């Protein structure tokens, strides 16, 4: 019997490419990798419903965020910001952008993302918001992020926070961000290379926020666990709907969370506040505003409002002091801004998020502001 293993074998695989073959392989790979995201847009339906916002489950899908901004009509006005803009407690049709649109007859688009903060917002707009250029942009400023060193991410103790891929990976240094160099470099690359963002989009949308191999092994969370994807291949998987947000028991007027904050703490909350000079979040916010201005955007900054009802006297004074610093800087940069007066206590859900009524009132107040009207060209 002939023994096939006795023939001389110099290596364990035939994949030894010559320089020319490498050029072919790299050319093909790069071509496919750059082509796939483009082709995917034709393949994957995305028709946002009115008052659309990026679904909560896809908050880390920055490729989708970019795609959402990319398909906005030229006259639409993106409202950019954190969960205050996105609408932490409200349904997608109960947010600031919806009521601004209703009050002004213009299309205001919700360009907020859940879980953002100025350091991450800067990363989002810098790397995934390239289409925000040469247009009117309403930029929200939530001063809550500067209200204590932890929220400002100044503490040296490691913190787990949302959107770590969006914060500065190397400079400026974020003390509480302790990822290893491999993770930092990977994140820095991912946000610069669209194919990698697109791969992340596939993971977020179709594979339960994990890689396709991990998805095939995922359990269903029951005990004893069942593994629904064991015999499925990662093709033709129906993922999270992109164009609309599935109804959530946690958000909207009917949800248990949609209720006024506990007013029993009225005037009791003490916030340390950081100084504007030392604030990482404020520095990031300034970079963001300048960046948008530099891209030719006609900016209007809306500062707050924060829930001053809950603050004690000293905290309120520091808040006002910070607000005036912000106003001074915006003035100096010739950026138009509005500082709406505080909403009624019962229209806040917490320290910074309004309830649906609060958004409606805020939209009306903004609309009444001459600066706002002038900015809108009315």
């Amino acid at each position, binding site marked *: 019997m002939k023994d096939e293993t006795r023939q001389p074998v110099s290596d*364990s*695989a035939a994949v030894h490419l010559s*320089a020319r*073959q490498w050029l072919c*392989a790299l050319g093909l790979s790069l071509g496919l990798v750059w082509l796939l995201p483009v082709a995917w847009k034709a393949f994957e339906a995305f028709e946002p419903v009115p008052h659309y916002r990026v679904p909560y489950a896809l908050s880390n899908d920055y490729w989708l965020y970019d795609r959402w901004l990319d398909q906005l009509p030229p006259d639409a006005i993106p409202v950019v910001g954190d969960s205050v803009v996105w609408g932490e407690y409200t349904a997608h049709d109960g947010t600031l952008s919806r009521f601004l649109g209703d009050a002004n007859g213009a299309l205001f688009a919700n360009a907020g993302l859940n879980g953002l903060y100025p350091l991450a917002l800067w990363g989002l707009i810098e790397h995934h918001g390239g289409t925000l250029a040469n247009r009117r942009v309403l930029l929200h400023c939530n001063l809550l992020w500067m209200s204590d060193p932890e929220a400002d991410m100044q503490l040296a103790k490691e913190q787990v926070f949302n959107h770590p891929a969006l914060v500065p990976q190397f400079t400026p240094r974020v003390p509480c961000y302790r990822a290893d160099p*491999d993770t930092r*470099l990977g994140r820095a690359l991912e946000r610069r290379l669209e194919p990698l963002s697109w791969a992340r989009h596939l993971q977020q949308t179709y594979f339960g926020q994990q890689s396709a*191999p*991990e998805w*095939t092994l995922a359990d269903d969370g029951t005990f004893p666990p069942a593994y629904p994807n064991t015999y499925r291949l990662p093709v033709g998987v129906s993922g999270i709907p992109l164009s609309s947000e599935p109804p959530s028991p946690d958000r909207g007027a009917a949800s248990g969370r949609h209720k006024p904050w506990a007013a029993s703490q009225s005037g009791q909350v003490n916030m340390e506040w950081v100084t504007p000079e030392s604030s990482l979040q404020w520095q990031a916010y300034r970079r963001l505003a300048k960046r948008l201005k530099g891209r030719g955007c006609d900016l209007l900054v809306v500062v707050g409002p924060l829930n001053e009802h809950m603050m004690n006297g000293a905290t309120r004074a520091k808040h006002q002091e910070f607000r005036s610093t912000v106003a001074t800087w915006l003035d100096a940069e010739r950026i138009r801004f509005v500082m709406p007066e505080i909403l009624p206590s019962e229209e806040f859900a917490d320290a910074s998020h309004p309830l649906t009524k609060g958004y409606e009132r805020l939209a009306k107040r903004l609309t009444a502001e001459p600066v706002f009207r002038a900015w809108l060209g009315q």
Partner: protein
Amino acid sequence: MLFHTWPFLLFFIVTIAGFWVLRPTRFWRHWILLASAVFYGWWHPYYLLLVFYSTALDYFIVGWMERGPRLARPGWRMAASVVGVGAVAITGLAAPAGWGGLAAAIVFFAAMLEVGHWLRSRRAWLVVSVINNLSVLFFFKYAGFAIENLNAVLARIGAGQLPSAESLMPPGWEYVLPVGISFYTFQSMSYTIDFYRGNIAREPSFVRFAAFVTFFPQLVAGPIERAKNLLPQFAKFPKIKPGDVSDGASLFLVGLFKKVALANYLGLYVDRVYGDVATHGGASLALATFAFGWQIYFDFSGYTDMARGVARCMGFRLMLNFRNPYLAVSLADFWSRWHISLSTWFRDYVYIPLGGSRVGNLKLWRNLLITFVVSGLWHGAAWTFLIWGALHGLGLIVNRDLEQIAWWRDRCPSLAKRLVVFVFVSFAWVFFRAESFGQAVQILQRIFTTGWADPQMPLLLLLLVVSVWVYQFIYESPLRAWLEKPPMKVALAVAMILWLLLFAPGGGEPFIYFQF
């Protein structure tokens, strides 16, 4: 630093650039040495002390071995040495708690060197080198295991307990297994043994020798290179041809795919099953056992492919370490394909000195068992590794007898032989992978006694492994030319690149063999 991480890519770009810039000078070797120190020190800077100790020890011992017999016996040297050793010993005894261990180690090593100087024979120096190297290896790798077992015996007879290995470390120094210590210790030691045997000449340059021992692509997980192959490559700047770079990149890509796409994926399934043995049935445990066999193969051979690829891009040729081991038709064939650099090391430095196969049956069995038990212990300090080695030794003995049977040798289909070898090797892996002897026994028991419920192994994973196995079958068949056609090679490379970019799970999972 791991090959499949971004910092390594940056490190490699800088290293290659410096290497190329320094090529007209003699400093390219210093550059490699520096790069290797950075690469290794990335884990823990104090590891560097050990690797350079091992390197310096063998470098100087070989020097003394060469010059030894011609030296006079200077009385003043002996006197100074005795005083020195005594001073260190007294310092050690007087040292605050925790430093005594280090002082004792220094006294021991110094005393060993003095013995060498005193006896002045090649054999004495060889013994000094082996004892020194193995002592360091023993302390960091086996002391915990040995003390734990000795304490169990002492407790049984009611005697006092030995201090833990951790307590022997100087204050503030962590007792951790230095990455790759078994690899570089064996590599460095083989140089001394080969010189002693007259197989190689002494390397006069310390930098060249240190670059050989610490050469970063193969420092932490092999291949365990022999001085005869790698050391001469440091004699002059290597000729780097375009084919070297393209070949190196090919090796690296294949290795990266093996590690990131295959080994890490298999690891997720294996961890799930082995992490909860009590709730998994026979089919799951059997499949996870086979999966572990493939995981460790992809993990380790992936590492060595990447190591060979990196070295090749720099113009160096490292030895082949894996040759499709799961196509082996016998256990002996398996060991000629699996971790070739280690199996040949044990063959040359343990098995043959014991008498090899040119002895009677009983001695042959003894030699095989000793070699494989030692090989098992090389992998780790636990009874499970010892049993794993012994199983392979016994398997080889049985295999030799099987080969005497004409039907088995000449008529049994090679596919059946391959399956037998694969199943045997896989079941031996149970002892390798299990956390304890008890768990290994539990796994084996459950495989044969519990129901064969759906093992829930992902279809995608199964398809990937089967595809690789089929590829290897074709590669070692007359159809191999088909795999070597350029469109096929390009298609495979593109498929691997796309998979890595789009589907690979994130995270730089460490390599299994780093723990050895």
